C-alpha cells in the first residue's frame, strides 16, 4: 500500500506537467497579441512593446514556458491584469467560497444519493424505487438556472425560510479568518452567524447537489443490485442476519467502488462547474472569478484559475484511487 501510494503520487508528475503545458498553450492559442489586448485599442506602440518585454512575450516559447513553470513551483501564479494583485494572494477567498459550497453540495449528494440508491436496490421495483429513479432522471436533466430561481421563489419569497443569495447577511457580516465561513463563525463562537451562514448555504448547495445526487443514486442502485444477487449475500441472509446489516454492511462494502469513482469525478466537476449556481445565488466563488476574468481578458487569472481547478481535480482522483485500495483489499496494486 505504501509503495503504491508513492508510485501513484510520482505518476502525477507527468500528469501535472502535461496539464501546465496544455494550459500554457491554450492561453497562447487565443488570437491577438496579449499585450495589445491588455492595454486596449488606444495604446501606443511603445507601450505595447514595453509590456511585451515585461511579460517576456518576446522570448522563445520554451523559455516562456520554463519561466512560467519555475514561477508555479515557487508559488508564483502571476499577477492579475485587472486588479494588479498577485493571484496567489487574491485567489484564496474565491477558492474558499467554492470549497465551502462544493463540500456541502457533495455531502448532500452523497448522503441522499447513496441512501436513495441503496433503498431503491433493497426494495427493487417498489413504489419508492420508481419514484426515486424518476426523480433521479429529472434531477440529471434539471436546468440549474430554473431550479435556482424556483428555489428562491419558494423558500425565500413565499415561505420566507431562507435567504436568496450571497454567503451571509451583509448587515451583520462575518469576520473572515480562513474565509470558510462555517469554520470562521465557529472559531469566533458566533453561533448566530454560523446559523446564518448555514442558511445561506442550503439553497445553492441543494441546487449544486442536484445533478451529482441523481447520478450517485443511479450508480449506487445498479451497483447494489448486482452485489445483492451474489452468493455471499444469499449466504448472509440464509444465516439469519438482519436485512439492514446485509444491505448496509455486506452489500454496500462490495458495491461502493463504482460509487466512489463517480463521487470523485463529480466532486471535481463541482469545483469548476459551479458557475451557474454561483451566478444565480451570487456566490463569490471560483466559477465567477474565472468567468469575469474571461470577460475582462485577464489572461493570468484565467490561466492560474484553470490550473488550480485542474490540480484539485487531479488530487481528488488521487485520493479516490487510494481509497479503493483502502476499502477493498481485493484490489492489489503491484
Amino acid at each position, binding site marked *: 500500500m505504501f509503495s503504491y501510494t508513492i508510485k501513484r503520487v510520482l505518476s502525477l508528475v507527468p500528469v501535472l506537467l502535461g496539464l501546465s503545458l496544455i494550459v500554457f498553450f491554450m492561453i497562447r492559442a487565443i488570437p491577438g497579441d496579449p499585450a495589445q*489586448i491588455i*492595454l*486596449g*485599442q*488606444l495604446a*501606443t506602440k511603445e*507601450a505595447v512593446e514595453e509590456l511585451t518585454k515585461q511579460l517576456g512575450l518576446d522570448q522563445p516559447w520554451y523559455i516562456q514556458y520554463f519561466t512560467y513553470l519555475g514561477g508555479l513551483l515557487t508559488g508564483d501564479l502571476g499577477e492579475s491584469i*485587472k*486588479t*494588479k494583485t498577485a493571484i496567489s494572494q487574491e485567489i484564496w*477567498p*474565491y477558492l474558499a467560497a467554492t470549497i465551502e459550497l462544493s463540500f456541502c453540495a457533495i*455531502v*448532500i449528494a*452523497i*448522503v441522499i444519493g*447513496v*441512501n436513495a440508491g441503496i433503498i431503491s436496490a433493497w426494495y427493487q421495483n417498489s413504489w419508492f424505487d420508481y419514484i426515486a429513479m424518476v426523480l433521479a432522471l429529472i434531477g440529471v436533466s434539471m436546468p440549474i438556472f430554473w431550479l*435556482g*430561481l424556483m428555489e*428562491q*421563489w419558494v423558500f*425565500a419569497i413565499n415561505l*420566507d425560510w431562507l*435567504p*436568496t*443569495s*450571497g*454567503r451571509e*447577511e*451583509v*448587515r*451583520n*457580516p462575518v469576520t473572515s479568518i480562513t474565509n470558510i465561513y462555517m469554520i470562521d463563525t465557529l472559531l469566533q*463562537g*458566533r*453561533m*448566530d452567524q*454560523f*446559523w*446564518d451562514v*448555514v*442558511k445561506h448555504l442550503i439553497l445553492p448547495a441543494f441546487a449544486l447537489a442536484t445533478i451529482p445526487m441523481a447520478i450517485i443514486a443511479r450508480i449506487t442502485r445498479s451497483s447494489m443490485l448486482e452485489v445483492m444477487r451474489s452468493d455471499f449475500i444469499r449466504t448472509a441472509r440464509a444465516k439469519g442476519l438482519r436485512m439492514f446489516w446485509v444491505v*448496509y*454492511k455486506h452489500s*454496500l*462494502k462490495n458495491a*461502493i467502488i463504482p460509487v466512489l469513482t463517480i463521487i470523485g469525478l463529480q466532486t471535481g466537476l463541482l469545483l469548476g462547474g459551479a458557475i451557474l449556481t454561483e*451566478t*444565480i*445565488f*451570487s456566490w*463569490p466563488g471560483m466559477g*465567477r472569478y474565472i468567468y*469575469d476574468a*474571461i*470577460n*475582462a*481578458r485577464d489572461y493570468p487569472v484565467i490561466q492560474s484559475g484553470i490550473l488550480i481547478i485542474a490540480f484539485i481535480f487531479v488530487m481528488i482522483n488521487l485520493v479516490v484511487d487510494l481509497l479503493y485500495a483502502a*476499502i477493498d483489499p481485493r484490489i492489489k496494486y503491484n
Partner: protein
Amino acid sequence: MKKRGILFLVFALLLSLALVGCSGNSSTGGTKEEEDKDTGTEEGTKETEEAAGNNTLVFGRGGDSTSLDPAVTTEGEAFKVTVNLFETLINFGEQDTEIEAGLATEWKTSEDGLKHTLKLREGVKFHDGTDFNAEAVVYNFDRWKAGNAEQFYYYNSQFGDKIESVVAVDEYTVEFNLNKPIAPFFKNLAMSPFGIASPAAIEKHGDKFIENPVGTGPFVFKEWKRNDRITIEKFADYWQEGLPKLDQVIFRSIPENSARLNALASGEVDLIDGVNFSDVATIEGNPDLQVFERPTLNVAYLGLTNTRGPLQDKLVRQALNHAVDKKALIDAFYAGAADPAINPMPPVVAGYNDAVEDYPYDPEKAKELLKEAGYENGFEMELWAMPVPRPYMPDGQKVAEALQANFEAIGVKAEIVSYEWGTYLEKANNGEADSFLLGWTGDNGDADNFLYVLLDEDAIGSNNYTYYKNPEVHELLLKAQASSDQAEREELYKQAQVIIKDDAPWIPLVHSRPILAGKAGISNFKPHPTGSDLLSNVELK
C-alpha cells in the same frame, strides 16, 4: 473492522448535518455574553437587520467594481460607488446634466475660452483629515496629465493635451490654462472620473489607491470583498450639515436580474438596479416595493458596418431603417419604458435636432429602396446579438429575433450570431460584423459625448464600430468641439444630425428609461441619468 469506516463516515455526515440544524437552534440559550447582543435564533437575520440599524442601505447591482479610484476606470459599475466617495469641482443637477456648484463655488472663463478660473469651497476635508484646497486640485490634474492614455482613459479623452497647465493662484483659487478651447469643459469636470482625491492618500497607497480611495464625498470607504460587496459608511466631517442621512451603504453584486429582484422581494437588499422591463408590472403590484425610472441618457442601436458588403450602399442602410418597427420593439421588450430613437442621442441633450424625421416603418418603401440599390431579391447578412443585458438592451437575443423578422419581411435574410462579450466587442470593433446591436450611455450629457465619440472618423477603432466616415460631419463636429459659443455649437450639432440621418450608419432603436426598484420605505432617491447615483439624501424607513 477498517471496512466499517466508510459506513461510519456516511453516518457521521448524516449526524453532523442533523447536528448543524440543532446546534443553531439550541445554542442560543446564550453560553456567551456576546451572543446576547445579536439574538441568534431562526429569525436571526431579520432581527439583526434591525439591531444593526435601519440606517444601512443595501444596494443590489449586476456587477462588482473594477476599481475604487474613478480616474483609472471606464466602468459604469465603478462610478456608482465612487460618486459617493469623491466629489467633483462641478456637479451635475440632481436629475439632469446641467452644471452646478460642486467643490468649486464660482467660475469664470476668459473671452477666448482658454482660461478658466475656479473659486474653491473652503472648509472641506478629505476623509483622511487633510484639507481640500487648490494644491490638492493641482496635484490631481498633474497626476492625470502625467499618466498615459491607458491609465487615465477619461482624462485623455476629455482633456488630453488641451490642458496646458493647472495653477494654484491662492489657497482656494485654481486656474486652468488651455491651448485650445474645450466646449464642454465644465460638464467634463462634473464627470465621476474627475473626482478629487486626497494627495496624501495617493502618496501613501501608490498602486493600491484603487482599493484605498480617499475623497471628500459624503461616504467613507470601509470594506471591499471582491465579487461580493463594497461597504461605505457615513463621513462624520462631511461639509454639508446633516448629510448623508444613511449611516452605511453596502453595494452587493448579484449578477442575475431575476435573482436580484428575488433578493429585493425577500428583503435581503433594499434597492436594486437592472430590473427587467418585464418585471415592472409585478413590482408595481407589490405594496412593499416601488419602481424608479432613471431619466434616459442612452441610445440603443443596430450598427450597420459601413464597410461591409451591401451595407456600403447608403440606400440599403436606409431601406433597413424603414424595415424596423420600433414601436413593436418598445412594447414587447421595454414595457413601454422607452422612446423610439430618431437621432444618435436622446432629446435631453442640448443640440438635439427636433426637425429630423425618422424613417417611417414602411416595408414597401424599404423594398423599393432595395430595388433601387440593385438588391431586388434581398441579400444575406449577419446580425449580431449582444450576449449581455444592458439598461438600453434588456435582451439582445430577443431584440435580434424581432429585427430578423422585420428584415425577413423585406427579403433580407439575417443570420443571428453571438459571441462572448469581450470577443463580441473586439470583433465588432475590428469591423467583422455586418450588423450588430450595441448602445451607449452618455457620460456628461453633451452632444460631443454622443456624436463625436460614436460617429466621428477619429473614433474608428474606439467607439465608432460602424466605420462611418463623412468629412462633412467630421468638420462640423470638430468645429463644435472648439467653439465656446453654446448656441453656435448646438446649431453645428443640428446640422450634423441631418447628415447622419441621411447617411444612416445605424438604425437608432430606442432611448430607454432604465428601471430600478426599492423597498416602499425609501425616500429621496433620485436616479441620475448618467447611472451614478449620489445617495447622500436617501432615507430608509
